[in-house]
């Protein structure tokens, strides 16, 4: 017997057929489904959906806060970078100024030392010249005296002392001048 004919036969027989509509079953379906709907809405769906929404909201808040924090952090980083650059620049400047100052001081000291040295040199030279002048003067006088003494000794015997002295003196002056020109 094939299935379809059985289905039809049972349907026609009216007892427990596959297409039978039992009103009692319909009634119970309505009761069970609506009760389930009410119970679940109250005790399951509302808490679950509420918790889901709360979680979604919280995750969104956390994401927003994270985004805000990142912007803030970037701002702070930028600040710090800028401050660091400023500090570096200042340090550079201070260093440069220091270098300049030291250079100036060194230059000054050098110049002063040079000037002092020159002054000392000049003084020494001057003193030397003076000494020489004095020595020459003394030598000249001594020489005149010696020559005169020697000449007077010599001439005492044979010459007019005054005339001779003049002669010698002019001679000595010539010697002195030649010595002055060629020291």
């Amino acid at each position, binding site marked *: 017997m094939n299935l379809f004919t059985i289905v039809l036969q049972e349907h026609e027989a009216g007892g427990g057929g*596959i297409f039978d509509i039992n009103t009692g079953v319909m009634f119970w379906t309505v009761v069970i489904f609506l009760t389930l709907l009410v119970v679940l809405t109250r005790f399951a769906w509302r808490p679950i959906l509420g918790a889901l929404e709360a979680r979604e909201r919280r995750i969104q808040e956390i994401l927003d806060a994270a985004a805000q924090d990142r912007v803030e952090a970037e701002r702070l980083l930028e600040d710090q970078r800028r401050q660091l650059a400023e500090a570096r620049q200042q340090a550079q400047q201070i260093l440069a100024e220091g270098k300049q100052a030291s250079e100036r001081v060194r230059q000054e000291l050098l110049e002063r030392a040079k000037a002092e040295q020159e002054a000392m040199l000049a003084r020494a030279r001057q003193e030397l010249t003076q000494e020489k002048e004095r020595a020459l003067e003394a030598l000249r006088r001594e020489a005149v005296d010696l020559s005169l003494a020697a000449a007077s000794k010599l001439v005492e015997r044979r010459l007019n002392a005054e005339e001779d002295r003049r002669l010698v003196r002019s001679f000595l002056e010539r010697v002195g001048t030649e010595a002055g020109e060629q020291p």
Partner: protein
Amino acid sequence: MIGRLWPWLQAAEPQAEAAAAPAEGGGLTLGEMIMHHVTDSRELEIPFGGALRRIGLIDRTAIELPRFDPIQLGPVTLDLSPTKHVVFLFLAAILVAVVMIWTARKTHGKAAERAPKGVANLIEAFVIYLRDEVALRNIGHGGERYVPYVLTLFFFILFANLLGLLPWGATATGNIAVTATLAFLSLVLIEVSGFRTLGPRGYLRTIVFVPEGMPWYGKALMAAIMTPVELLGKVAKPFALAVRLFANMTAGHLVVLALVGLIFVAAPVASWILPVIAPVVMAVAIMVLELFVALLQAFIFAMLTSVFIGLIRHAH
């Protein structure tokens, strides 16, 4: 499967002795056996009832359900005696309630502070999908109030479908009365939501179609032609819902039972290996498909209900 097969074996056994004891209720044909399993009944089969009876623990394999006298309500006779399908509907409802309330406790309150995990997370994934992709997407703005209905519908049908796949289970959603009632409830919800959103005038337009920019006789003619079509359209939607779910659930079971029945049809004429292995492999494959169909049909019912609510809410 064993559950379905077992009573059959019970029946098959006396079939061999039918000549000796015809009164035992044996002599059932395969077709009658299959029909017995997809139709409603007034008894509940006891798990392992056959085996238990054989070892003498019980003297029958099924429990007779209580019977009430039918109530006459005008032209309708209402027989409120519970049947196998009513019991399984109730079982499905209890299971859904337990699982969902447990999930609610796992996700609500203090538990909400922790990351979701486990079975509750699985249920949540279903709930989120149904809320966002089924209810809200199809119903549109203001669809939040329909989410509980869609969720209840989906899980109730899913659990009823799955209970039918268990041994000794019965598929309440394979009963046209059950699916027709669920579809009727959806129809009521669809029409009420349409009425609430569109107002009396707008709602009337979904029944009486009056085209714009036509002379009065054109309008009258179109209304006269289109009104029955519109009404038919309203009824056709839940009718399709009811038949789709009923046919899918019944057909799957018929195929599985027929494949298993092949064993007994072919047993006398072939060696045992071919008639046993081939039907079992096919029946298992169909069972796996049935698992998917159970999920799919629950989804389709919930999905189409949402689509219809969305359609009528946005009708102009």
